[in-house]
């Protein structure tokens, strides 16, 4: 058995706000092996940032222990700091500074030579498409540009363990793709990565292991394949009449479905809804069968499981009921 790069035991953090106790992280037991790429997935307020802040020495745990890179986060803070990189939820780059100046300074802080820092900064600036803006004052950058600069700051010293708190917030699709390339590239080079996200598809695209957090506790810890596989892809077949939909239910092949076909009304039209492990193939096959049986499919929707679906199946609550605002709210906070 290898030595874990992160190991927590009953890690707990409570805050007292106006005489009320907020249990931000509850008795978290987590073990991450060197070289893993782990995504923390959970709604707003789940405790993702608080966990990361304890693991990066920013917050002392209320109780429990955490060892990071072999060192206790409370007793050996300096050693922990030397071994990690951290991109927080705020802006790592100082607003009064220029981007490249911050990169040079960050390298210096980690004991890199100026030449090494410059070379590495150029690679990252190129990789995250910051060439045009990195020599400007940070406060003049757009939210997404600033976010990408924050990420380069966390990566400049090629840490063996990198924490990224919602790295993709505020990024457009193209820059999300660039970010994924960078993260996957670092991971291939052997870096252990722990990131947080609100999106299952993002966790899916990057992470092998997804840790679902809710109310400060881990409610699932698995590969995204398994998390989603258990749910299946949701297929909705539309029909002209409820009778057609009912008839179709008798015709389709229910084998392999994770949720049996049900007749319902969607967007005002009769529909048959199924969840199936291999939804896309199943949908194509179902349309063919039904046409052959003389039933006309008037609409078709195939939806991969989202965080909301995973969450609903794990907790019986939807994200909205969980009292969480949508992810957009966080985007604005950070970009503001």
């Amino acid at each position: 058995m290898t030595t874990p790069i992160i190991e927590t035991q009953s890690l707990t953090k409570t805050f007292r706000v106006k005489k009320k106790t907020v249990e931000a992280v509850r008795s978290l037991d987590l073990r991450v092996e060197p070289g893993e790429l782990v995504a923390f997935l959970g709604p707003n307020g789940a405790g993702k940032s608080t966990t990361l802040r304890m693991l990066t020495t920013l917050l002392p745990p209320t109780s429990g222990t955490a060892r990071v890179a072999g060192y206790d986060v409370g007793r050996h803070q300096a050693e922990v700091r030397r071994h990690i990189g951290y991109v927080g939820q705020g802006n790592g780059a100082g607003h009064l500074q220029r981007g490249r100046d911050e990169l040079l300074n960050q390298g210096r802080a980690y004991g890199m030579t100026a030449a090494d820092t410059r070379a590495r900064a150029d690679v990252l600036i190129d990789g995250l498409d910051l060439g045009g803006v990195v020599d400007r004052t940070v406060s003049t950058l757009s939210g997404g540009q600033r976010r990408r600069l924050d990420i380069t700051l966390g990566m400049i010293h090629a840490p063996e363990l990198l924490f990224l708190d919602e790295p993709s917030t505020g990024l457009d699709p193209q820059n999300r793709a660039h970010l994924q390339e960078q993260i996957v590239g670092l991971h291939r080079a052997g870096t252990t990565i722990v990131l947080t996200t609100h999106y299952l598809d993002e966790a899916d695209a990057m992470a092998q292991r997804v840790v679902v957090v809710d109310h400060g506790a881990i409610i699932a810890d698995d590969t995204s394949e398994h998390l989603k596989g258990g749910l299946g892809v949701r297929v909705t077949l539309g029909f002209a009449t409820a009778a057609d939909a009912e008839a179709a239910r008798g015709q389709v092949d229910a084998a392999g479905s994770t949720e049996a076909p049900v007749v319902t009304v969607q967007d005002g039209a009769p529909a048959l809804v199924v969840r199936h492990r291999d939804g896309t193939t199943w949908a194509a096959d179902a349309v063919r069968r039904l046409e052959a049986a003389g039933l006309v499919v008037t609409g078709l929707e195939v939806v991969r499981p989202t965080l909301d679906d995973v969450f609903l199946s794990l907790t019986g609550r939807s994200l909205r009921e969980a009292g969480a605002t949508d992810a957009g709210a966080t985007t604005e906070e950070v970009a503001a």
Partner: protein
Amino acid sequence: MTTTTTTAAPRASYTRPTGVVADVVTVFTREMRPLARDPFQVVFSMIQPLFFLALFAPLLPDGAFPGGVSALQWFVPGIVAMSCLMGTSMVGSNLLLEMQTGSHERLLVAPVRRSALLLGRAAKEIVPMLAQSAIIIAAVTPFSFELHLPGVLVGLAIMAVFAVGMASLSYVLALAAEGRDWMFWAVQQTFLFPVLLLAGMLLPVDDGPAWLRTLSALNPLTYVVDAERALFAGTWPAGTILAGVAAAAGVALVGLGVGIRAMRRQD
């Protein structure tokens, strides 16, 4: 997708431990960069002192000051002190901004000693202080101000020690006020003018009522300004200079001591 630039850098000995001096230099250098990029910003906190110099100093009658020096000779050291106090007392607002936006958090995770986060920042304040003093002295030397260079240099050295202390105290205030900008400014503004006026910055307090003289005697800036006045006039009264050095050193020690503790408690 095709143009993947690999970021896989060899993990060299990037993690060499650095000494406290290297850490202070790192923080100092970072603080200096915006100033080096835009040197004009040193003038920002000088606007008020320059107005006092231009619009108040001409009202002072020559020959009314201790030692028989010209009004300007007496007034300039006070303006240098005012400019220093105004500049250094507001530097905490930069830290407030960095705490709010997140860059301070990044530095707290970086392997930089907490003490260096304060020392580097406080030490940097010496630079704008010297630049501002140079501007003031250059502006008044063509008039009835006699430049006694050795005295001025020693005076500025004392002022530099005082600046480090005041800047540290401003950072302490910022750390205490975290998230509440209004509180930082309320406290800073409340202290600024009493400290300046009680030090006899605008007018001598020697002829004031007893309570005012007592308050003045409790103000460390009083001793610094007295020492500056003597040195700027080219005189070397040992007692006055020593009192100035002691007051500046006291402010610096208290500021750094409290400041380093406050920075260490950051989490």
